């Protein structure tokens, strides 16, 4: 037998494990006699192993990614495939983030129309079969008028302080690490939980786990005082921290009032910038100023030596180069931090000439 008889799709299906018994046996049999197939699969295996290094062969403006302390823009591991209709999503296993939000809404005594809530989440892309982006968790709560913040690199002290203020908290974890009995196949956040208690002295944390307490029937016939939504479990802090670490200690906090808002922007100090990226930031800064000025002019503002909100005069309605250095610095800082954030979240900026 020769691998020439194997179609490219049969071979790709074998590697994707979407083949059938005949296809698998055909590939394995062909391997014994076909050197070209052996080389093809050897190359495919190397590519799989070297996947992380592939991007380094592309000329980029960035420092080597492996040297950066990144917090990639993660999403909860979930089903792959086409986005199903809202009703079908109930059959998927991707609901944990959404259920945590539902739990909080009910805990706050807010009446929710379950179907509408689901439709809103799906329509806005906050609930996806291919995995819910971490940043999407809490959007539904914000949509309901609650005050929500998202923080990476949060600490147990942050949790303790927030709980003391009676805030609601969602954390994202690698569930397999929280349950050591389960096989841990992938180091990635795959589950959302609500933190309901923290005992630093006893070194335990109490969590509401939607996977433990929710059934389809619960979803279909929701009830405010449904006892199945109140299941909570305590875990050793060390285990929790191990599991939480996979999401870069991602914490969604639901405040009680605006005075509790204490901005915690992502720490970008450890992200270096190349000379090229600094030049890029200057271009971004000038363009940001032009965008701002164009919008102002459209609203009827014109240049004036002093800001005058009544007569729509503004001293900064001048070309970027004529701005005071302090204003330029503000625009530059915004641009620089945006570029750094893009990198910190795991993206690379690639110059088109290298493509």
């Amino acid at each position, binding site marked *: *037998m020769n691998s*020439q*008889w*194997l*179609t*490219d*799709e*049969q*071979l*790709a*299906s*074998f*590697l*994707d*494990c*979407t*083949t*059938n*018994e*005949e*296809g*698998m*046996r*055909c590939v*394995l*049999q062909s*391997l*014994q006699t076909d050197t*070209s197939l*052996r*080389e*093809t*699969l*050897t*190359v*495919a*295996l*190397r*590519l*799989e192993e*070297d996947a992380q290094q*592939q*991007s380094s*062969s*592309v000329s980029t403006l960035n420092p080597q990614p492996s040297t950066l302390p990144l917090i990639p823009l993660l999403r909860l*591991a*979930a*089903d*792959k*495939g*086409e986005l199903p209709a809202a009703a079908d999503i109930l059959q*998927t*296993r991707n609901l944990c983030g959404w259920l945590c939000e539902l739990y909080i809404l009910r805990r706050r005594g807010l009446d929710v129309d379950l179907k509408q809530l689901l439709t809103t989440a799906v329509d806005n892309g906050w609930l996806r079969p*291919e*995995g819910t982006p971490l940043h999407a968790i809490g959007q539904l709560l914000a949509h309901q008028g609650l005050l929500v913040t998202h923080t990476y690199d949060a600490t147990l002290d942050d949790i303790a302080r927030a709980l003391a203020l009676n805030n609601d908290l969602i954390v994202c974890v690698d569930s397999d690490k929280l349950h050591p009995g389960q*096989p841990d*196949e*992938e180091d990635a956040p*795959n589950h959302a939980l609500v933190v309901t208690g923290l005992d630093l002295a006893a070194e335990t944390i109490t969590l509401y786990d939607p996977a433990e307490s929710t059934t389809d029937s619960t979803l279909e016939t929701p009830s405010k005082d449904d006892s199945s939504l109140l299941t909570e479990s305590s875990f050793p802090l060390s285990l929790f921290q191990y599991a939480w670490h996979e999401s870069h200690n991602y914490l969604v906090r639901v405040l009680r009032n605006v005075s509790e808002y204490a901005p915690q922007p992502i720490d970008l100090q450890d992200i270096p910038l190349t000379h090229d990226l600094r030049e890029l930031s200057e271009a971004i800064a000038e363009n940001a100023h032009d965008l701002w000025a164009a919008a102002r002019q459209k609203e009827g503002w014109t240049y004036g030596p002093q800001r005058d909100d009544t007569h729509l005069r503004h001293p900064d309605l001048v070309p970027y180069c004529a701005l005071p250095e302090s204003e330029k610095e503000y625009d530059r800082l915004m641009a620089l931090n945006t570029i750094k954030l893009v990198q910190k979240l795991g993206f690379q900026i690639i110059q088109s000439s290298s*493509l």
Partner: protein
Amino acid sequence: MMTDHDIVQGLICRDERVTREFFFQRCRPLFMSIIQQVFPYDVDYDEVVNELYLYLLADDGARLRSFGFRCSLYQWIKVIAIRYLIKKRDRLIENASQETLYIERASESESAMMARSDVERLFSLMPNQRYVHVIRRLVLEEQKPEQLAEEMNITAANLYNIRRRAMAQLTRVALQDVHRTR
């Protein structure tokens, strides 16, 4: 986000944006890695990839039209690229589309199928028996991935990763076995 169907359709219609973004941008790191793996000498990247593009689109996109979505498009392109470049290196490029021929001949291979005992022997050589379980259920018993994920109490995304790793381990074991027995 575009589905594999969208991308294939875009490539067939020679949609400029789809072609650029998928074939010439997203696949670029893949093609660069394959070229590095296959060719022991420097080759002109653009020249090789343009040839590959023409190969893919030959006969009014017949190859693309034959894609049955039984695997991911990315994996399929990967296999096509590896095989094409190996052939190119070995100067065995055949211009005619052989996909139909391959399919017809594949059915002839049934009589020469690897014996079940041989597959079981390869399974026994795999260090991770959980992977064996996944292959048994998905490939031999043709269980739906969603059902298996639920049965294993893992997400479908986790299973997606596990099954690729499982097949990689089976392939590695099979290649080592061939090397040992030769």
